[in-house]
């Protein structure tokens, strides 16, 4: 034994090394490089120059001076919180409803996972169709039940466009919430409910006194991961609205992409994505602390 690492354990590094080298080259180095770019002057002309001019925090100052960054941060939070509230509640409802040892129910639950594995681009196009003015089923349905009188131009106004992308993203996110919560539900001992029934508890009392407390760690995980996965969403919104109309759905990832690849201001694009990263990083640390605490318990 050599300081706790035996000779046999050294072989372990050989197994890890290829993946670590790969990730270092294509992820960890680019992350550092992204910070460097964000402090340089990088546009189409200087993109491939070996030495780029350092302008330090000018890019950050510039992006904070325009109204677009703050606007996109607000949009990102609106989008994320809107998505999480509904996909969590709906996912929870589905998890409870489908928590049965029944073949048909199990099959239905499995089929509902499909939206999660579909290419986001296709889901976005389907929802673009559903919310279209001519031939869109959303308008037809809402008119037939009398909620709206005349067709709404969903994707042509900032507020309704935000609502539309949120609904599309909820559809993609519900399966994730449902499956994690039903895994938690399956672990709750059945006799807890039985003894509560004998004590005369009704369904609501059982739900809030047994189900919710037993699922505490699953609920935490679903909410934190849901936040992270929703906050970084790009393709759904990009395909459905491209950030429009009038920047109404311009979340941070889209602002960063457009700044880099439409306006070719790569440095400011990198700076925006760093701020996005910072927000997620704070949540990530919070999450890893949380699971550590759970493992100790």
């Amino acid at each position, binding site marked *: 034994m050599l300081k*706790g690492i035996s000779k046999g*354990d050294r072989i*372990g*590094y050989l*197994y*890890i090394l*290829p*993946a*670590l080298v*790969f*990730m270092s080259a*294509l*992820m*960890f180095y*680019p*992350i550092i490089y*992204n910070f460097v*770019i964000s402090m340089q002057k*990088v546009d189409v002309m200087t993109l*491939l120059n070996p030495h780029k001019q350092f302008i330090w925090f000018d890019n950050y100052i510039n992006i904070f001076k325009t109204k677009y960054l703050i606007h996109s941060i607000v949009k990102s939070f609106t989008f994320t919180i809107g998505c999480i509230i509904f996909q969590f509640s709906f996912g929870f*409802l*589905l998890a409870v409803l489908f928590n049965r040892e029944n073949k048909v129910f199990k099959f*239905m639950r499995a089929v*509902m*996972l*499909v*939206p999660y*594995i*579909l*290419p986001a*681009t296709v889901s976005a196009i*389907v929802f*673009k*169709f559903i919310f279209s003015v*001519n*031939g869109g*089923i959303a308008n037809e349905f809402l008119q037939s039940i009398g909620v709206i009188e005349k067709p709404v131009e969903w994707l042509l106004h900032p507020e309704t466009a935000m609502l539309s992308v949120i609904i599309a993203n909820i*559809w993609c996110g519900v399966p994730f919430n449902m*499956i994690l919560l039903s*895994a938690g539900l399956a672990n709750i001992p059945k006799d807890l409910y039985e003894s509560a029934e004998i004590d005369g508890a009704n*369904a609501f009392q059982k739900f809030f006194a047994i189900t919710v407390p037993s699922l505490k760690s699953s609920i935490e*995980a679903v909410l934190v*991961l849901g936040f*992270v996965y929703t906050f*970084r969403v790009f*393709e759904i919104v990009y*395909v459905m609205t*491209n950030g429009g109309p009038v920047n109404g759905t311009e979340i941070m*990832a889209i602002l*960063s*992409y457009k700044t880099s*690849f439409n306006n070719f201001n790569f440095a400011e694009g990198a700076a925006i*994505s760093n701020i*996005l*990263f910072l927000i*997620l*990083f704070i949540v*990530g640390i919070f999450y*890893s602390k949380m*699971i550590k605490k759970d493992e100790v318990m």
Partner: protein
Amino acid sequence: MSYFKSYKIKNKLGKYISTFIAVICFLIMIFPLYWMFTSSLKEETSIFASPPELFPLNPSLSAFTTQLSMTTFDIPRALLNSFLISGSTMIISAILSIMAAYGLARFKIRGFKIIIFLFLVSQMLPQIFTLIPNFIIFKKIGIYNTYWAPILSNCTLAIPFCVLMMRTYFIGIPKEIDEAARIDGCNSLQSFFRVMLPMCSGGVIVCFVFSFLFGYGDMVYSLTYVSDSTKWPVTTGIYNVVGRYGIEWSRSMAFGSMVVLPVVLIFIFMQKYIVAGLTNGSVKG
């Protein structure tokens, strides 16, 4: 006695109501998919029918044939590109991550916590975050506009997921089994291939399925790193054709159905592993 009777009736009624709500929720969840498939079987005129046709009254495949004969974008070619990209993503990331997961599960590693943390963080990173630096790096090293650019980028999404998920499978196997194999004369590599891998075959399949899906679902990497549209996968193709130029809805939905078909087939045959991957992969590392 009467108390129990009323309780039972109430219980039964509750069950009917919850079944009813469950079925409604199920129908809402599958409706967008159903609507895509049925709309792809309609003529463009029936798309605008009011009230909408919930079942295609005159089903036809004309949307598919027109879309496939389109000269601006070659769909079969793009499907091949998709399979090439996602197949390569699958092989590279499955091999690298299964090995790494074994190393992290079975050996005492210095810096273990940092490595796990790095994988956890990279799993959470937004794609946009590496998109800009890698765009410059790929241009410099000359893999911009080749299949390698999207393949390698997709692997950076798949590897952290597979490593963390696969590690839980390896940890689940008692150390004694590994040790017994070593005593019987296997070296670490032999015991890895002959004992550990077969015992974790479920996890191995999950790795393959998910890294394929990561590769198949990507649109933005090919859009950004590949300017030659003959190298685009179907996802980038459908974005470009439908999103930018706007085509008839029946044809868009036919295109969408063609893109989705492989995923649905994978789902049908790999359902068990997809459920396992979703539950094991995303909860803990």
